[in-house]
C-alpha cells in the first residue's frame, strides 16, 4: 500500500497541512524542530494507535485546540481508501473509513507501517520493556485479537498485584486467599497465550533478522533471537536475581506445557510474591534476547553493530508483515535514522528498503540521505509544508 495524500488539522505544530505523496521514496527535509517527525508520527499513529514518542494523546493535539484530525488517502492496489482519525482532548477519539464510522481500533486493518527512529537503538541497548513492546506491537498488527489478550493480561496482573498488596497489609496467608487462585488461573491462561504467540513470532522473525543483518552489515554474521522466560528463572527486569542459563527458549512453545510451567512458577514463587506483593514471573518480565555471534548484543555489541541489529529487527518485522498482508506492503517510515548511520550502512539500508511500495524518510541534512531516496522531496518549516520538488 502507499499513502497518496496526507492532511493534518491541529496535529502537533500543524494548524493545517496537506501533502501529496508518491509511491517509492518521499523525503521530508527541514531543520530540527520544524515538524518532520510530527508529520510521520501522525501516520504511525494510524497503524499502531499510539505514538512512538508519548503514551497519551494529549501532546498530539495542537496547543490551544481541542481536537486533531489526521486524514490519509491510501492506495491498496487498485482500491482507494480514505482513513480519518479525530483525536479529542476531552472525549473519545473517532474514526472513519471511506466516510463511514468505524472504531478507532479497527484502523490498523487498513493501514500498516513500520517506523524506524533514533530511539530504536534502545531495542538493543535499553530495558526489556522496549523489546516486549516491539514484539507486542507486531503481534497486534498481525492479529488484532491479541490486543484484547494483552490488555486482559495487564488487567489481571494489576488485580493480582493489588490483591497481594492488600493481603500483605492484612497479614493474610496465601492459602487463605480464596480469590488468588481465581486470578492465577486467568493469569496462567492469558499469560501462556502471550508467551506462545511471542515465541511463534520470534521463531518467524529469526531467519529474517539474520538475513537483514547480513544486508545491513554487509558481511555474514550470526544474529539470533531467543526468549528469556521469567517463569524459568530468567528475570531480566530484576538485577538481584541470578539469570538462569536455561531460561532461554528459541523455538516455538506449546500452549499446554507453557501453562503448566507458568502455573508451577506461580506456586514456587508464592511465598516471595506474598512478601513482596508483586507478580515475579510471567510475560511482563520476559525478555527478547539478541545474540550476535553467540554473545548478547546488549553489553557486547559496538555502536555500529547495535544499530545494525536495531535496523534488522525493524526490517524483519516489515518483512513478516508484508508476507501476510492482503493490502500490500507496510509503509516504511525512516525518521531521522540516516543521521545516525555511517556512510556504508546508509547505502545498504537504502538498498534494503528499495523494493517496498513506499518509504517515507525524514532528515535535517539533505546530504545524509543517499541520492536514490531523494526522488520526491518535501520541505518543511515551522509546521508548514513549503513545497514539493521532483
Amino acid at each position: 500500500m502507499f499513502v497518496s495524500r496526507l492532511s493534518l488539522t491541529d496535529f502537533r505544530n500543524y494548524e493545517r497541512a496537506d501533502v501529496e505523496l508518491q509511491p517509492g521514496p518521499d523525503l521530508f527535509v527541514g531543520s530540527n524542530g520544524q515538524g518532520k517527525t510530527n508529520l510521520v508520527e501522525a501516520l504511525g499513529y494510524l497503524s499502531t494507535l499510539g505514538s512512538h514518542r508519548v503514551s497519551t494523546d494529549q501532546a498530539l493535539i495542537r496547543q490551544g485546540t481541542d481536537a486533531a484530525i489526521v486524514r490519509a488517502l491510501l492506495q491498496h492496489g487498485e482500491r482507494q481508501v480514505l482513513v480519518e482519525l479525530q483525536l479529542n482532548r476531552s472525549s473519545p477519539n473517532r474514526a472513519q473509513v471511506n466516510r463511514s464510522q468505524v472504531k478507532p481500533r479497527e484502523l490498523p486493518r487498513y493501514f500498516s507501517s513500520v517506523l524506524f527512529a533514533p530511539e530504536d537503538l534502545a531495542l538493543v541497548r535499553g530495558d526489556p520493556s522496549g523489546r516486549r513492546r516491539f514484539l507486542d506491537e507486531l503481534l497486534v498488527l498481525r492479529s488484532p485479537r491479541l490486543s484484547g489478550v494483552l490488555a486482559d493480561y495487564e488487567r489481571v496482573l494489576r488485580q493480582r498485584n493489588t490483591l497481594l498488596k492488600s493481603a500483605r497489609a492484612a497479614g493474610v496467608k496465601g492459602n487463605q486467599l480464596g480469590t488468588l487462585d481465581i486470578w492465577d488461573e486467568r493469569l496462567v491462561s492469558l499469560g501462556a497465550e502471550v508467551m506462545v504467540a511471542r515465541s511463534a513470532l520470534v521463531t518467524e522473525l529469526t531467519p529474517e533478522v539474520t538475513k537483514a543483518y547480513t544486508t545491513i552489515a554487509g558481511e555474514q554474521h550470526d544474529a539470533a533471537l531467543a526468549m528469556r522466560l521469567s517463569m524459568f528463572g530468567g528475570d531480566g527486569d530484576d538485577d538481584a536475581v541470578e539469570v538462569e542459563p536455561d531460561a532461554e527458549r528459541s523455538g516455538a512453545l506449546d500452549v499446554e506445557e507453557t501453562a503448566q510451567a507458568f502455573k508451577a512458577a506461580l506456586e514456587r514463587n508464592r511465598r516471595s510474591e506474598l512478601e513482596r506483593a508483586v507478580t515475579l514471573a510471567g510475560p511482563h518480565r520476559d525478555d527478547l534476547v539478541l545474540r550476535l555471534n553467540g554473545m548478547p548484543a546488549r553489553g557486547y555489541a559496538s555502536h555500529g553493530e547495535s544499530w545494525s541489529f536495531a535496523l534488522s529487527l525493524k526490517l524483519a518485522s516489515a518483512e513478516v508483515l508484508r508476507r501476510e498482508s492482503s493490502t500490500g506492503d507496510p509503509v516504511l517510515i525512516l525518521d531521522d535514522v540516516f543521521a545516525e548511520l555511517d556512510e556504508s550502512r546508509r547505502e545498504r539500508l537504502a538498498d534494503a528498503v528499495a523494493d517496498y511500495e513506499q518509504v517515507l524518510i525524514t532528515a535535517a541534512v539533505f546530504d545524509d540521505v543517499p541520492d536514490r531516496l531523494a526522488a520526491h522531496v518535501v520541505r518543511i518549516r515551522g509546521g508548514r509544508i513549503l513545497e514539493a520538488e521532483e
Partner: protein
Amino acid sequence: MYEGIVQELIDELGRLPGIGPKSAQRIAFHILQTETFDVRRLAEVLLEVREKVRFCTICGNVSEQETCSICRDPRRSHTTICVVEEAKDVVAIERTREFRGLYHVLGGAISPIDGIGPDDLRIRELMQRLGDGTVTEVIIATDPNLEGEATATYLTRLLVQPNLRVSRLASGLPVGGDLEYADEVTLGRAFEGRRTVEA
C-alpha cells in the same frame, strides 16, 4: 466559569456518572432556558426516589417496599435464582422475557483494584436463600468481563452442593462488555444456551 449558582448547578450535574463538563453545561442551560421544562417536578421526583426507594431485603433489587415486585410475584418460579451484579441488569434480563425465576443482586463484582472482595458482595445473603433447598438452579449472569468471570468462578466453587444445578450464561455476549448493554435478542439467546459449569 459562570457566576455563582449557575456554576454550582453545572458542577453538581457534572458529578453524575456519564456526564462530562460539556453535557453538564448543556443540561444546565436546558434547565435554565426551557420554559416547558418542569423543574419542580424533577426536584420532587429526586426527593421522592431517595425517600421511597429501598433495596429488596431478599434479592437486593430496587423496590418501593420491603421486598420487590418480582420476589412478591407468586407466578414466578421460586426454584431458580439468577445472580447479577447490579439492579440495572435485572431490568435488562426482564426485557428479554426469557426468565421466570427470581434474582439475586450482588452489588458489584470481585475487583481488588476497586477494593471489592467476596465479603463486600451480597454472597452471604445468597447462601442463606439456598439454605432450605427450595432453589434447585442458580444461573450466574455476571458481566462477561474479567471481573464478572472471576466472580462467576468464585461463586461456582462456593455453590457446589447436591441437588443444585449451577449454570453460567452462554457466551455470545460481547466479551469485555456490560450485561446491561447487550441487546435483548443476544441476551435472550444467552439464556437459552446457558451451560452447567464445572467447579
